[in-house]
């Protein structure tokens, strides 16, 4: 099963360290392989360094791909995280 969604980052600092850490922590809960694409570059959704070096800013667009048995739940959770601005105030 493969799920693909394109989302916009709304938190102030973009995909900075704390946001990336939260993303990885969620991604790790699933079996599905998770990949993020931004500006033609692809990052492993479980690698914090990969995600950081994408340098996705506030307002930037991310395409998230989940591949595997729990792909749907995974992508739902990740979307929620991004929509909630990674739990930042």
């Amino acid at each position, binding site marked *: 099963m493969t799920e693909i969604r394109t989302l916009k980052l709304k938190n102030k*600092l*973009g*995909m*900075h*360290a*704390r946001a*990336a*850490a939260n993303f*990885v*922590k969620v991604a790790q809960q699933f079996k599905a392989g998770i990949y993020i694409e931004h500006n033609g570059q692809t990052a*492993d959704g*479980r*690698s*914090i*360094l*990969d995600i*950081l*070096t994408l*340098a996705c*800013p506030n307002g930037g667009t991310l395409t998230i791909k989940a591949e595997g048995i729990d792909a749907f739940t995974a992508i739902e959770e990740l979307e929620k995280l991004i929509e909630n601005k990674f739990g930042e105030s």
Partner: protein
Amino acid sequence: MSPDQTKKTFVLKGVGVSPGVAIGRVYCFDPLDSQISFYKLNDASLIPKEILRFKKALKESEYQLLEIQKNLKKTKVTEPLYVIDVHILILRDKKFVNRTIKYIRRLEINAEWAVRLTLDRYKQIFEKVEDTYIRGRISDVQYVSQRILSNLSGEKKETIWGTDEKIIVVAQDISPANTVQMKMEKVIGFATDAGGRTSHTAIVARDMELPAVVGLDNITRVVRTGDEIIVDGISGLVVVNPYPEMLQRYEEKKLLYSAAKDEYLKYAKLPAVTLDNYHVHIGCNIEFIEEIPSAIVHGAECIGLYRTEFIYINRQDLPTEEDHFNNYRQVVGTKDLRWSTIRTFDLGGDKFSSNQKPLKELNPQMGLRAIRFCLKEVEIFKTQLRAIWRASAFGKTKILFPMISSVEEIREAKKLLEETRQELLAQGINITSEMEIGAMIEVPAAVVIADKLAREVDFFSIGTNDLIQYSLAIDRANERLTYLYEPLHPAVLRLIKSVVDIAHEANIRVAMCGEMAGDPLCTLILLGMELDELSMNHLAIPRIKKIIRESTVKESKLLLENALSFNTSSEVRTYVHDYMRGHFPDEFQNGDD
């Protein structure tokens, strides 16, 4: 004499991210390359063992970070916890781990070397990132690598922490987890290469309420463990190997900072006018342009003393006219300042880095320095004078000549000043039509001939630090004599009063720019003498304004008269202290003044 006195003073400019002043010894925190050996595995069969060793170091590192996180959770430090999360996630990052393992396997190298290569690779990757915040996160990779390396080496480091010195930690960046490796009770400040207001160091320093300057670029390369440094978190400056006078000024600033209270700030913007309507001009003493914003925030009406020595010492060669001018123009051109008093060079030639063979002077305080030096090195002096004239076109400028001890000196200085003025006019350069000329009154001889000097200048500025040390014959650097250093010594009071009286008789203004001007205990004494201007450290201004605004000249004159009637310093001090405590019970408590 400490060995530091032979080391050159220099100043680094960064960003002050946590206010306060710290004076202490440098401890260079854990440079990556220290005591790490890189070697090739000479047998491919050693590879699995090496990979295992790396994985063990990863586990150990993660365990340590989790422990640190647990300990931090118990303290009030909460904000930086996520940084440790990030570090743990890097340790678990498959890309990071696999890359390192791949290096061990393919290149047949030891784990240390492989970690180093991985870090180098990430440095390349991060350097390409445009976003400065993200680019700065290489410091996290660096931090994690460092921790892995120290676990690979298996040794627990214990170095300077065993000594009694107060320590200023110098590092590339300091993460919250680093602080657990330090004996924090010994750390009094931070200075780092990397970072801005949101760097790890900034967060840690503010959390611990320790002064910090970050963004210094290369401090880790230019200082060494054991160097004496000053961290000025207010102005964002770091002074390395401060010379004795500078050290004293910063000791004063440190005390003022701890005494300053936010509640005084409400007096900052109010004029220093007594209840019976006597207005004292309040100036600020500065030596770096970076200090001007705090001067204004704290309520300075003018710069009463701009020390220019820094322009000379912080460089390899002599400063050019442009170097001077660029500094002066910024001071003079600051709006919100009524005027700026620029004091010409006040040190000896030994402070020039370019001077290869400085003459050793047994008693530099009484040596070839200040105006004496300038009148000997006329070209160096004229370069400065020209720059001051040129700056005068940008705002009201006054010039002040230090260490005047005779009429000849002031005449000679004025002659050179006039020469430079004519030269600039001939070149068609825009300068002010009138610049007030002042003489520092700090040599007792100048007090004795003050009436004659008054005819030569537009104002006096009393430098109490030197006046006290010269008139009481005390070397301020000599710790065994500090008990004799007493601004309220009857002789000192008489000297100051006589200068003020003579100046006013001659119709010229008198300012004071020594430490005494910012000492609240002395404020009414100085009011009683009717000084026209008090110039001080910015931190002292609000409190002095408060005292002036709640007093009268009339009572001050009475206080002064009584003070002058005593025979001994201690009688004067007790009397003045009791009086001040009676009138300002919140300001002057028992024991401290």
